[in-house]
C-alpha cells in the first residue's frame, strides 16, 4: 500500500491529534440516486461549522466525487452495497475544520494507484481524484479492517482555488 498504508497505531495518532466533536454518522446504499441527499447533508453541516456557501458546496463536491468513485470503481456500480460516512468538527485547529471519513467494503486497492490524471490530456473521465485533492487539505486512503477502504478527508478554513468566485446564495 506504499506510503499511505498505516498500522493501527498511526491511525489512532491521526484520530487523536484533533479531537472530534459534533459527529454525524450515516450509512447509505451504493445507489447513485442517493448522492444528492448526501451532498446536501454535507454542505449543510459544513456551513453550520462556519464554512462559507461556496466552500461548503465544494466540500460536498469532494465527498460526492469520492462516493462516486466507491460506487463506480469499488462496487462496480452495484447499488445495494454499504457505504459509511462520518463527519466531525475538528476543534483544535486555527480555523474551523471538518473531517469526513468514507468507508466501504469494496475491494482493497493500492492507495498509491489512486491518483489524478494529466489534465492537459482533455478527455472524459478521471477528474474525480484531482477535484478531491484540489478541494481538501488532507486526502488519505487506507485499507479498512476487515474489508474495504477508508478515505479520510480534512478541510481547514475557507481557502479556495484562486479563480473561484464567491457565491452569495
Amino acid at each position, binding site marked *: 500500500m506504499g506510503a499511505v498504508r498505516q498500522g493501527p497505531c498511526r491511525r489512532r495518532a491521526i484520530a487523536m491529534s484533533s479531537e472530534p466533536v459534533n459527529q454525524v454518522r450515516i450509512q447509505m446504499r451504493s445507489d447513485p440516486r442517493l448522492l*444528492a441527499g448526501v451532498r446536501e447533508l454535507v454542505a449543510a453541516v459544513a456551513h453550520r461549522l462556519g464554512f462559507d456557501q461556496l466552500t461548503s458546496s465544494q466540500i460536498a463536491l469532494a465527498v460526492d466525487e469520492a462516493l462516486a468513485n466507491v460506487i463506480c470503481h469499488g462496487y462496480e456500480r452495484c447499488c445495494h452495497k454499504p457505504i459509511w460516512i462520518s463527519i466531525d468538527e475538528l476543534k483544535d485547529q486555527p480555523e474551523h475544520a471538518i473531517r469526513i471519513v468514507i468507508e466501504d467494503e469494496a475491494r482493497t486497492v493500492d492507495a498509491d494507484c489512486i491518483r489524478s490524471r494529466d489534465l492537459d490530456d*482533455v478527455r472524459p473521465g478521471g477528474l474525480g481524484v484531482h477535484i478531491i485533492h484540489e478541494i481538501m487539505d488532507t486526502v488519505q486512503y487506507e485499507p479498512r479492517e476487515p474489508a474495504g477502504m477508508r478515505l479520510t478527508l480534512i478541510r481547514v478554513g475557507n481557502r479556495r*482555488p484562486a479563480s473561484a468566485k464567491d*457565491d452569495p446564495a
Partner: protein
Amino acid sequence: MSDLQIDIERRDGVAIVTPRGDVDMATSPRLRTELKKLIAAGTTRIVVDLSHVPYMDSSGVATLVEAMKSLRQVAGSLALCNMNPRVRAIFEIARLDQYFTICESIEEALPGT
C-alpha cells in the same frame, strides 16, 4: 431522489439544450443520451443553457467534454452559458474553463456557436 429534465429548442440552426436539475452520476447518463442523439442526427451547433443546473459533478463535466470532442470532429461547436458560480468552479478546478466556450447568456452564445 434526484431527477433531470432536459428541454431542447432549436433557434437559427442551433440546438439549445436546457437541463433542469442536478447533473451528477445518477443523472448525467440522461444528458449524455440526449446530446449523443442530437449529434447522431446531424446537429453540429449546440448551446447548453445551465441556468437551471444548481449542481454538476465530474460525470457531468465528462459528458460535456465527450460532446465537445464529438462536435469538433465534425467541425461543430458547443457553448455553455448561464453557469452559476458553483458549477463554474468545477470547470475551473478541472482547468476546463479555457477549453469550453463559456458565455453569460444564450444570446451571447448564439452568434459564435
